[in-house]
């Protein structure tokens, strides 16, 4: 075997040698072949992945925003709902808004979670059941109301989604309290 290995490169390649040389390589674990195959499969999948992502309506950016200190995290897809301009970044400013008395705090979380605890005076408008709850909401709160949506923190983008729904319905004065209920509760502010 070793002799074969040493001799093979030195001998001139005739047809006879080529066949057995080939057979030698392909009969054992053919690393060279596997590497070629891997390169083919990998490049094909990577190219297709980026191409589909680029053209798909649900494609995402190459680099998302995953730093919670910058705001709500997002994969930055084409259908993204996050607009950082609407965000209220600190619990303190949210509290100031709350103290002003003019804002309506709207909870985007589910009914069950809302009942377990919410900001005092907040309204439940679960984003997953928007259509169900919205009619009643619209009757109680006119379009001119100042709305502050929130959900469970910077890792949740439901607050933004709800804000976009409300904007689409004509509410113009909306902010998003991104630190959400857990931060409000931790700060010891009024809950119920």
């Amino acid at each position, binding site marked *: 075997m070793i002799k074969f290995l040493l001799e093979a490169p030195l001998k001139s390649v005739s047809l006879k040698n080529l066949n*057995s040389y080939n*057979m*030698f390589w*392909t*009969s*054992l674990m*053919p690393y060279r*072949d*596997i590497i*070629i*195959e*891997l390169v*083919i*499969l*990998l490049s*094909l*999948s*990577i190219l*297709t*992945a*980026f191409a*589909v*992502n680029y053209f798909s309506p*649900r*494609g*995402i*950016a*190459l*680099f*998302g925003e*995953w*730093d919670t200190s910058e705001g709500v*995290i*997002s*994969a*930055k*897809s084409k*259908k*993204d709902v996050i607009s950082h301009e609407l965000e209220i970044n600190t619990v303190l400013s949210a509290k100031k808004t709350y103290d002003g008395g003019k804002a309506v705090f709207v909870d*985007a*979380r*589910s009914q069950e*979670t809302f009942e377990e605890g919410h900001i005092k005076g907040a309204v439940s408008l*679960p*984003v*997953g059941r928007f259509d169900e709850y919205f009619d009643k909401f619209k009757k109680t709160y006119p379009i001119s109301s100042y709305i502050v949506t929130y*959900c*469970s*923190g910077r*890792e*949740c*983008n*439901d607050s933004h*989604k709800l804000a976009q729904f409300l904007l689409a319905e004509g509410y113009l004065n909306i902010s998003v309290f991104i630190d959400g209920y*857990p931060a409000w509760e931790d700060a010891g502010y009024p809950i119920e």
Partner: protein
Amino acid sequence: MAVRWFLGVLFVFACFHKIASPAHFAKIIYGYYLFPDFSINIIAIVLPFLELFAGLALILGIYPRSAAVIINVMLLAFITVLSINLIRGQQFDCGCFSLGEAGYSYTAGQLLLRDVICFILGLQVIFYKGCRRWCFRQTGSIFKNISIDNCNKKKFSGQ
């Protein structure tokens, strides 16, 4: 051959929802708190297609060994990530309404076991030396196909 098809079908099915909602998948990757921020989206884009192509390759019999290698490498990564999270005891729960409960019905331990089993199956595909049936392109580069040779010869020299 059955093992090949089982693994292939499993992976092709598993990757559909990841391709359908990459943003959702990216968020799940973020939830492991293991990967650096810049890599999360790239992984979310590329991984599902790796799964798709490797799975298809296994089913069609195109380069089954390399496809199994790719799958096993991915499985190793999944196993590592799951184990780390199990040890950390961390549960990603963003408390989002819209992140739905479907698909979260398995515990990390069950997923880990499933991945380990698949890994072993993958090893079988990689190291199988006999005759492979229903292969388009067993191995070699694009122009070589030795699967027919393998099946026709009872025993080949050089082994």
